[in-house]
Structures are given as C-alpha cells and as structure tokens.
C-alpha cells in the first residue's frame, strides 16, 4: 500500500500526524463492547413477523396458536400498535412542517408495501421459541394481494395502486426540475442548445443497481425501562435522532427516551435511519420494562432495512470541436421502494453529481423523480445518491472522448469545475481547488500514457485497458439542512481531559481525529485527550450524528471552538497562579510564557484548580458550532484491468484513488477510509446487486453467499494519494473524505473495460454474464 502527498498546507503538531486509532487495541483484541455484548442475558427476544406478499393488505391474522407456544411471552400485531405514522430517516429535524421528513411508517402495519413488511412481532424467552411463534403466525394470515410493482414504470402506470394515499395522491414522492441560469448565453433553453446543429450531440441511458451497505454487525438494539423512562441501546450512527424518532413513534415526550450508542460494526448509512429502535422501545413499554432485544438476521438486514437507490438516467450533451461542453440535460428516475426513508434527497444528490464536476458553456437542465414502488425501501448509503449520477456523467465523458479521439484526462481538465465556482441553486462554493491536481497527479502515478501506448493495438481474447473517473462531493448537508454540533471538554486532575461529542465513531476513525483536533488546539499531546466513545443522549452533547462526511467538518468546528475556549479557561487560571507572567500559552502540555520558559505543568495547574482552598475551579468548556457553509471535495480513480473476454472475467491489475479532501487530519486513518471505499466501489462495479423476483417482489439473494461483496481475493493492493489543500471553511483546512472514496472506482472500471474491449457498458454491476453477452453481441468472442 503506497501513499503520497502533494501538499499546499503548513504543518501542524497533532493534526496531520499518523496517530494510531484510539480504539485500535480494544477492537483488535475483541474487548471493545458492541450492542449485543452489553445486552443483559437472558433477555426477551423479539422477532418480527414479515408478510409473505409484496403489495396488499393483511385481512385476517390469528395469533392464538403462537401465543400458546412454550416460551412465547407475547404476540403483537398492527392492531395493537399506535395508529399514527412517523418519519424514519436520520435527517436533522426541521421546525418548519414543509421541510419535515415524510411520516409514512407505523410500528406494524396491515398495509403491506414490500415483501417482508412488518405485520406482527413475537416476543419470547429465546430465539427458538420466537421463531416458532413467527412461523405459527405466518400460517394464520390471510392477505388481499395486489400485483407487486417492482419498477418505477409500473408504479407510474395510470391505474397503479397508490401505496401511501395518506401522504401522496400518486406514487410520486417528489419531483425536481432545475435549469442553470441562461442569461447571456443566447439560448432560451438548454434543449435549444442541445439541438443546435453547430454542436456534436451525445445521448445515453444508464441504469444503476440496488446496493446493500453490508455492514458486518447486523442491525441490533435492546430496550428497557427505568424510573418510567425508556432506555434504548442501539447500533446506530445517530443516537440523538433515534431519541427524537422513538419519541415521535411512541407519541411520548422526547426527553423520556434515552439512547445509548456503543461501538458499532459498520453502518454506511443504513444506521443513519431509525429502523427497529421504536418497536423495541414500544415492546419494553408493553412488557413491564423488561429487557427486549431485536437483532436482525442477515436476511432481514437485506430485505427490511435500507440500501442504495436503483436509478436510471437519460442524458444528453452538446459539445464543440474544442473539447468544450456546451450544454447537458439529465433526467433521473429513482426507485424509492415501499417507504419514503431519505427520499428525494438521494435523487437530488444524483443529479448534482452529474452536474457539478463539469461546467457547461450554456447550461444544464436536470430533472429527477422519486417514486414509491414495492421493492425493499432504499435509504442512505455511503455517498448518498452521488455515485449513480457520477457513474452516468463519467460514462458520458469517456464515451465522448473516445468518439472524438480525445484524451479522457485532457477532455475532463478542459471542462472541470473551476476554483470559486458557486452552485447557482444552493451556493455551495469551491473554496480550495485541488481538483485539476487529482487528475494530473493520477495520470503521472498510474503510468497512464505508458500503459495506453503498450496496449494500443491489442488483439486476442484477453485485453488490457486503463480507465479513470473524476468526482465532486460536498461536505455536510448545509444549506439543505441544519448543521449544528456541540462538544465538551473537561479537565482531569492529571492534566488530561475528556472530550465528548455527539457525532459518532462508526469505524471511520472519528474518535481519533477529534482527539487530534482537540489536542492541536489545546496544545497537548493527542494521548492526553480521552475521547468518550459511547454516546448517551442523557449526557452527550447534541449533534445529529455520523453521516454526510460531516464529522471532521461540522463536529470539527465544534471541537475547535470548544478547545479554544477550554484552552483560554486553562490560561485564565494560569494567570491567577502566575499573575506576573506575560504571553502565556500551552505547548506540549506545559504552560509557557512569552519567553518560552515553562512556568507550570498541566498536572500542577489541574491539581491546583481542583483542590485550591483559595479558588477551586473545575475547568471545562462546552460550545456549539452552527456551520453555515459547505465546501467541495474532489478526486479521481485510475484503474488498469485485464479482461478475459470468453470467460467474462475482469481482473483489476492496479487501482489508485487520488483525493483532494483539504488537509488530511490523520494520513493513516485517511488511507484506511479510502481503501474501504475503493473496495465498495469495486463491488458496485462488478459484483453487488440486490436481485428482486418481479413476480413476488421477494429478494432472491438476501444473504452473503448470493449477494456478492468482493473478498480479499478479489481486491488488489489499493493505492491512494492525497492532494492536500487548505480549505478556509474547514476547521483545520479539511473537507469531506468519509464517503467519496467509494465513488470513482466504479466508473473508472467501466471506462477501463471500454478502453480494453471497446465495449461501453451502461448498466452496473458489469457482471460476467452481462460482459459475455455484450462481447458476443459485438462479435468479440
């Protein structure tokens, strides 16, 4: 694994160091506690009864037999739970009703909208009794069944049954239609520019698949009651939002819910949604406050939790002989499945990803519709709608370059988003532009030109190719949603401190980089900052959670602001102790005066502050940062492939991601973050796809045998390179890195296959069977 840097940033002390993850030892040794490790056993086990149709109603359900089974404690159905509906996505709440998430879920429902919808729940003393109860209930259900609508086209048909008449009159959840300003371009519409015969014209239709997050720890939570309040312990990215949604779902004051978030075994967006926590909380309230656990089997994670939206795109582009993009249009259809979840935000991101990376001389017209269907409801997944649109535009860029005989890198460089670009709709601005450098550095590091020349005129059944792709990503959710975060620092007697934040460690290394940030600003070594890893909504400062690549940026601002205040509080106390001193500062964990003389150790100061008869102060700081800015992160991927055409096999020979994520807070954890994303990008390109039986709406491959994530045998050595810029809007010059690494490998692999074989693919994943069919069609085999 190789890593290089191109730096435009001045060095810091703690920020920028390859500090070992603060949770590394506990996780490697297996002593780190996850939700199920903490659950007091034996406890009650709840298993959800899932409908065996995809569209229709439960007309009768008889739980008598199930209730009589040994070990079964209780069975609840849709008849027993509150009538009202609640929203589930992990968005910041809005006090404006028009901006609130769609409330379309009940805890259990008789209206079945996806195969496996939740119609009842069995609570038992153990999982065997619970499973027997579930099978018993399922044999006593009568349905009224409608044909499943698995495609957007079916759900948009004039006579299609409306899945959520209480929130929408049709199956269209939302539509958007945006045209960039055309003033001064000489055209009245983008379509007019697209039709202008002076320009070349490109058209394509792409389709992207439903991808599962495939976190290793399945969704799990348990709940119990104490003093009339409900505690929910959950594997979640968003503890404070879980509290709010549990309150909404149960119809109780939000303060009566307490949510605890231990270490979690991955989330990738699927745990940026409130899934079974409300049901678990409701069950304990019905069962005298006893501990009830819901731990989903893998099959239910696939069928009943979120995924990446399958989307299709119709795009057009007009361009001139000088490599200029003149105008583009993009129409996106997003399949929302049975529930709104994060909804249209994903399609909106997809068309932004299509639009952002390149500028149009005239303009860009983007449209998107998000449509309810009967497939398992997609929601948030790492990079949140952007990969679908980025795949589409990166197909377009390579296809045009190939057709015109242009170098794909030169063509992109000619049209790249410029520094200072500001989005005409939301104002997000390119504050620090390392985008061109990610292409230039990648071209050099990948040996692009040599590889191209070497395999220029290759023939035979096995071909080699090199491809690349570029992307733009934003950092956090402002101005679409609120960005707010609070951090707290508390001084210990030994001069170390505790740092508490509400944004969560979900494997991405947040705890480590927050510790580095606080240490940098306070002036102590990172090892002196003890991060409180578990969130507890009763004591943890508010933050909406881990998502949107926002933690280092938004929570980072809160950490910086708090650390600055904390440092000042320490120095104020130091002046009390050394009134004659001038220009005090903290460096290397010691109080130093303007001459650089060490006046006090931090421990000495802390002991005095705690135990002074004269003036005892418990030094701490707690600050809220509301972030009203956003910034673009950039990057590229370069891939070399060997394609064995008769067998439809694609071997990745070499793969390199290049990122401009501003200042890199920790190069070691950043590299790990990039590697994980690259593996997911490879999976999306070649393997991963939720397959749905159109006749029943049932998932055909809801398990890790048939849902193919790449194994370590499928992923080559992963290389990454950072182009470091100093973003003026980031707390430490940093910008998004969490999600982006997943994006560029998928289209880069597609473009490498195109380079190798001349075959352009417009549907992912590019499975062996699809490759072989295309190679046969093209007469290559």
């Amino acid at each position, binding site marked *: 694994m190789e890593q290089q840097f191109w730096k435009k940033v001045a060095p810091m002390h703690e920020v920028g160091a390859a500090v070992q993850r603060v949770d590394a030892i506990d996780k490697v040794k297996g002593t780190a506690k996850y939700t199920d490790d903490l659950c007091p056993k034996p406890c009650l086990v709840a298993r959800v009864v899932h409908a065996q149709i995809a569209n229709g109603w439960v007309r009768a359900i008889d739980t008598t037999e199930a209730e009589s089974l040994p070990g079964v404690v209780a069975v609840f159905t849709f008849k027993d739970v509150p009538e009202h509906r609640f929203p589930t996505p992990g968005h910041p709440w809005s006090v404006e009703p028009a901006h609130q998430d769609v409330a379309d879920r009940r805890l259990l429902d008789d209206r079945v909208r996806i195969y496996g919808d939740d119609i009842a729940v069995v609570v038992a003393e153990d999982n065997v009794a619970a499973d027997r109860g579930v099978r018993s209930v399922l044999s006593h259900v009568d349905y009224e069944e409608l044909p499943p609508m698995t495609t957007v086209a079916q759900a948009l048909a004039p006579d299609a049954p409306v899945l959520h008449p209480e929130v929408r009159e049709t199956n269209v959840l939302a539509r958007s239609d945006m045209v960039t300003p055309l003033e001064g371009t000489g055209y009245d519409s983008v379509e007019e520019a697209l039709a202008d015969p002076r320009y070349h014209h490109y058209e394509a239709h792409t389709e992207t698949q439903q991808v599962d997050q495939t976190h290793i720890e399945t969704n799990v939570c348990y709940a119990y009651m104490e003093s009339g309040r409900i505690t929910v312990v959950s594997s979640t990215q968003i503890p404070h939002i879980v509290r709010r949604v549990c309150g909404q779902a149960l119809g109780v004051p939000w303060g009566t819910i307490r949510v605890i978030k231990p270490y979690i075994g991955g989330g990738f967006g699927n745990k940026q949604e409130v899934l079974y926590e409300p049901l678990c909380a409701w069950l304990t309230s019905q069962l005298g406050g006893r501990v009830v656990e819901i731990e989903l089997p893998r099959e239910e994670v696939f069928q009943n939790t979120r995924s990446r939206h399958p989307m299709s795109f119709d795009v057009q582009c007009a361009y001139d002989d000088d490599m200029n993009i003149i105008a583009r249009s993009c129409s996106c259809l997003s399949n929302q499945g049975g529930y709104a979840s994060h909804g249209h935000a994903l399609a909106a991101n997809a068309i932004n990803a299509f639009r952002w990376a390149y500028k149009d001389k005239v303009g860009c017209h983007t449209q998107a519709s998000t449509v309810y269907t009967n497939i398992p409801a997609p929601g948030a997944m790492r990079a949140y709608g952007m990969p679908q649109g980025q795949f589409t535009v990166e197909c377009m860029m390579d296809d045009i370059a190939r057709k015109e005989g242009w170098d794909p890198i030169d063509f992109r460089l000619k049209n790249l988003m410029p520094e200072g670009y500001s989005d005409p709709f939301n104002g997000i601005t390119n504050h620090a532009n390392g985008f061109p450098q990610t292409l230039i550095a990648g071209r050099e590091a990948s040996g692009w030109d040599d590889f191209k020349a070497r395999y220029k005129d290759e023939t035979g059944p096995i071909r080699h190719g090199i491809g690349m792709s570029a992307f733009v990503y934003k950092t956090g959710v402002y101005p679409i949603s609120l960005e707010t975060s609070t951090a707290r620092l508390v001084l210990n007697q030994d001069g170390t401190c505790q740092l508490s934040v509400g944004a969560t460690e979900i494997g991405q290394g947040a705890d480590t980089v927050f510790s580095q940030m606080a240490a940098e600003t306070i002036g102590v070594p990172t090892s002196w900052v003890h991060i409180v890893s578990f969130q507890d909504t009763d004591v943890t400062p508010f933050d909406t959670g881990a998502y949107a690549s926002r933690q280092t940026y938004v929570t980072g601002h809160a950490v910086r602001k708090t650390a600055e205040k904390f440092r000042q509080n320490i120095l104020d106390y130091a002046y009390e102790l050394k009134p004659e001193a001038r220009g005090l500062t903290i460096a290397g964990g010691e109080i130093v005066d303007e001459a650089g003389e060490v006046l006090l150790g931090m421990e000495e100061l802390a002991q005095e502050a705690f135990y002074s008869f004269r003036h005892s102060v418990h030094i701490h700081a707690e600050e809220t940062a509301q972030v009203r800015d956003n910034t673009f992160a950039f990057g590229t991927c370069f891939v070399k492939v060997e394609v064995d055409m008769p067998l439809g096999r694609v071997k990745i020979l070499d793969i390199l991601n290049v990122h401009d994520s501003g200042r890199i807070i920790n190069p070691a954890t950043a590299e790990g973050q990039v590697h994980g994303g690259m593996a997911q990008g490879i999976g999306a390109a070649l393997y991963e796809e939720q397959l749905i039986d159109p006749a029943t709406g049932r998932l*055909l491959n809801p398990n890790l*045998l*048939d849902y*193919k994530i*790449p194994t370590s045998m*499928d992923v080559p050595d992963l290389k990454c390179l950072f182009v470091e810029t100093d973003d003026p809007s980031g707390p430490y010059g940093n910008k998004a890195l969490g999600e982006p690494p997943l994006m560029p490998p998928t289209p880069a692999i597609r473009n490498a296959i195109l380079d190798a074989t001349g075959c352009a693919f417009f549907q992912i994943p590019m499975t062996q069977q699809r490759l072989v069919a295309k190679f046969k069609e093209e007469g290559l085999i």
Partner: protein
Amino acid sequence: MYDFESIHLSTSVDDAVAALAADPEAIIISAGTDVLVQIREGRHAGCRLVSIHNLPELRGIRMCDDGTIEIGAACTFREIHEDPIVAEHLQALCMAADTPGGPQLRAVGTIGGNVCNGITSADTASSVVAYDAVMRVRGPKGDRDIPVSEWYTGPGRTSRAHDEVLVCIRFPRAGYEGFAGTYYKYGKREALEIATMGVSCLVKMDADRARIADIRLAFGVAGPYPKRAVATEDALRGLAVDEAVAAVGDLACEEMNPRTSWRASKEFRLQLIAELSRRLIRETAIKGGADA
C-alpha cells in the same frame, strides 16, 4: 440457538446406523456446514439429529495394497487438499478440495457431506465422478459399495438409504493411474463462492505425447447432479490435443444440460462449459506430458 429437539452423539458407525434405523425422521449431521445452515433457515424445526462427528472410523486417507486410495468420509477439505497421496495421484480432487467456501469452512467441512448432500455444485463431487470412485456405505446389513455412476439419483438425492452412513470414498487404481488432473471452479468472485460452473478434467497422454489416450470430463452445475460427459470423452479419445481443444466446446455443450436460474443463464453456462473445457484439456494435457 438452533431449533432441534435432540442430538444422538454416535459412538461408532454401527451405533449411528442403529440410531438412524430406529428413527426414520432423524437427520444425519457431521460437521454441520450444511445442516446447521438449513436449521437456521427454519427448515427441520424441532428435528432429531444423529451426529457422526469425530468418529475415527470415518477419518484418514490411505493407499491400500491394491493401489486403491481410500478417503474417509469425514476427512475435511483441508486434510484432503494437504494430503501427499491425494496431491500425487488425485490432482483434480486436490485442487477441488481447496475451493469450497473459505479457510474456516474447509477446516471443518467434509468430503462425505459434500457428496451426500447430492447437490450439483459440490466442489469435490465432479472430481469424485471423474476418478470413477466407489462409495462405501454401511447399513444395518453391513457394507456395500456403490459406483459413483450410480450414486446420484436426482437433484439433492443419492442412492444412500436413510439408515446408511457413507464410510469412505474409494478411488481404484484404474480410475486415476496415468491421469493428470485439473479442477476449475468458476464463480462470480475468487472466494466464498458457490460454483457457477465446476469442471474436472483428467487426461492421459499417449507415449508419443501428442495424442490423448484417455480423457475424463466431469461437470458440476451442468445438469441436475455432477456428471461426466461420456459421449464427449469417447469422441475425444485418440485425438491430438489441438483437435480435442477444437472439438470439445460443441461436443460438451451438446451433451450437458445446464439450466437457467436467477444465478446464471443457460446460455452463459454453455459458454463456460465450452471455454473451460477447451482451456482445461490443454492445461491438463500439458501437465500430463503433452508437448506444449
């Protein structure tokens, strides 16, 4: 917790046979890599298990005096893959035993389970078929030998009776002597995979190192159970390697009968049968001494 009512821990093969004979509904379990997965899926709820785990009679790989190689039914994939007798004489099986699942599965999963479950994609099964093995089972009336050609009776079905236990798989000398062997597992990824196509190819070259004296070609996932392409073998015998490579694609596709499932289409599987047959014949012939 797994939903089974009882488990009989057999003390010997005879004890297991008696337990199975006494309970027509009992399910035999060895390492459990199939049965426990099925129980977890809700099948066999409340079942009674008869375990043959850890019976010394079912272990071991031996070369018998007459040249027959005997592999105990409870030998794990890993034991088979690492065994020097297998590596020397049963090259295709040696390769096949390194392909099921991942390292953990291969450390516990057994060849006996792999052939007793009767499924067409079982990785070691096509090599057992190619080497013309003999399945030795023990029932209430003692041992009986079943040629592998009579072992499979349908998808997921074998000629083993309910009260019989597979004791060992025997590879008579005539089945392997002089053959080079190759197994190729084609999956959608490189590990933790169920075969989209499995091909076991054995080639014995003539003394002139140009012509194929004898050949066996067995496929998994090209029909309801692992099967040899006997007519194809007949047509290829005596051909030069290039001629065999040129002819095998059409012949094998004609003889085999893969089906379309949501995992892969018939057309795609036929392409794999043709292409893999060609590549494996050449590769195995070279291993067997053919001029490259």
